[in-house]
């Protein structure tokens, strides 16, 4: 198009338009309104409705009655819920650092310029992100399996017993492996994109100072990655605490280990859809949301304090 022409008119007109500028401000509502309407209907309304539902209780006689905070006091002393929350918290504390370290290492390696076939690595590691959690879990479930699973076959060739990936002690780690496999590439791409945006003259200055690739990575790239890392961390908090698909799909393979309250989300699901305890399920969902918000803010606060110190 006539880019130069529009730029020229813009330059010649900028004096005049500065006066008329502010009067356009209200047109902004026109642009944000469609989004905000859907936001209100699909996010705020369900949230408010969940809060409302959670204050009621269904009785065999008398139907639904107001129950105040009863569902919440019940939830706070519900061992199955607490166990589930602690389990996903443990999952978060172990899986997320491993995943983000792998993503960080991969992003730095690909950005370092020291790597051959960097583009192949970048795409290859990212590919699992395009695999739905359902497919990833089915696939890994088969790989873990004792019958035709790859690991069982290899163990058999080596004369060892089939590894028990979905036993009581190993199920969470096996799920962690699936989630790591799914999301390292996604986080890597976010970090890599942030690295690409580091101003080039910073690297040149570092090179003039005689900094090598490792030193540049440590002193320039890592600090520049802080906001992107934080973003990945927040997404990981959300992802970990609402873990659902992976345990849900592995459940038939290990019904005694992965029960209906293995994660809080699985618990809310089974409460609502098999137990018909909709009101209690709403309270559990709402509390889970609260846990996630608190965990996310804690992450934000801790990292902010550290950056100031």
């Amino acid at each position, binding site marked *: 198009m006539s880019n130069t022409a529009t730029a020229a008119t813009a330059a010649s007109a900028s004096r005049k338009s500065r006066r008329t500028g502010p009067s356009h401000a209200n047109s902004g509502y026109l642009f944000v309104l469609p989004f905000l309407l859907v936001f209100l209907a699909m996010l705020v309304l*369900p949230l408010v409705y969940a809060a409302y539902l959670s204050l009621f209780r269904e009785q065999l006689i008398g139907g639904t009655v107001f129950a105040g905070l009863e569902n919440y006091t019940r939830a706070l002393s519900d061992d199955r819920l607490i166990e589930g929350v602690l389990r996903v918290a443990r999952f978060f504390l172990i899986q997320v650092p491993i995943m983000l370290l792998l993503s960080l290492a991969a992003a730095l390696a690909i950005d370092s310029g020291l790597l051959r076939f960097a583009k192949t690595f970048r795409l290859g590691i990212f590919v699992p992100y*395009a695999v739905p959690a359902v497919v990833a879990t089915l696939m890994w479930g088969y790989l873990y399996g004792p019958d035709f699973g790859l690991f069982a076959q290899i163990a058999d060739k080596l004369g060892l017993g089939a590894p028990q990936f979905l036993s009581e002690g190993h199920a969470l780690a096996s799920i962690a492996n699936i989630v790591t496999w799914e999301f390292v590439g996604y986080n890597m791409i976010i*970090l890599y*994109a942030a690295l*690409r945006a580091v101003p080039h003259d910073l690297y040149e200055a570092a090179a003039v100072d005689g900094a090598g690739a490792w030193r540049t990575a440590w002193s320039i790239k890592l600090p520049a990655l802080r906001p992107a890392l934080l973003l990945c961390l927040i997404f990981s908090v959300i992802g970990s605490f609402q873990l*659902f698909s992976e345990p849900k799909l592995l459940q038939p393979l290990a019904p005694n280990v992965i029960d209906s309250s293995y994660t809080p989300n699985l618990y809310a*699901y089974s409460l609502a859809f098999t137990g018909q305890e909709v009101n209690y399920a709403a309270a559990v969902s709402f509390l889970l949301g609260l846990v996630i918000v608190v965990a996310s803010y804690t992450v934000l606060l801790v990292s902010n304090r550290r950056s100031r110190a």
Partner: protein
Amino acid sequence: MTSTSPATSSLRTAGATATAPPTRHRRSLAQRRSSVLTLGMLALLIYFLLPLFWLFVASTKTTSDLFSSFGLWFAGDFSLLSNIHDTFTQNDGVFGRWMLNTVFYSVVSAGGAAFLAALGGYGFAKYRFLGNNVLFALVLGSIMVPTTALAIPTYLLFSEVGLVNTPWAIILPSLVSPFGLYLMRIYAQDAVPDSLIEAGRIDGAGEMRIFFALALRSLAPGIVTVLLFTLVATWNNYFLPLIMLNDPDLYPVTVGLASWAAQAVGGSGSNAELLALVVTGSMLSIVPLIAAFLLLQRYWQSGLSAGGVKG
């Protein structure tokens, strides 16, 4: 060599190793390091790609071959085509329906979400209306609201108004992408110069016309990014369709495959043959997305780097 524009930056990595005349004396060191690093990354790459290779190999086998042959290599009979044929004809061709449903849900959702995010992000970036910051902070804060915590109340609301078990039950909730809005706001800030908007006003164009005729073109890489990421989110979604739909004809491929897998889990009797179909269906279901990412990589990568600038 010193270019930093997003379009050319991907060339820099390749250029740096191939032609680096000023640091010739350090080249041998760099190359030694790169071998170690390359080997390490190769190990990582194998971890990510080997399961997919296994899946492909498995999709060429009959159910009995799955049990009797080694997972990382092909069995005597190459059954890929007959598996694909069986996958598409099982239950009167329901698998094809599931794939079409998935494509439909994700394309409509992603298109709608990207459009709303582009419009909204542009509005938040370019107009200083009253409440701009408050509203934007509200939307941004909602990124932390878990979508699955919303799913149950959304289900109950939808069942009140008869939307459950319709395509709308999947599409409507997927139209909101707070992260998409955030990305588009950042992107619009830099990609659409104020002078362009002012030039449009001088020419007498309305605000909407400026957006569609002038700004949209500059926003394209950002829009493609949001489009792809919401596409993946809807394509991969399992929880929402699981609770919203109970008619198998409406299932997306994720829920459909999971239902087959649940039937095949016994692995014996009449359901035994289903196992090969679950494996083949899984393999088929990931092909379109991987292809989309490979074809559109130039766009989503430049769009993402804009998001990374201010993180």
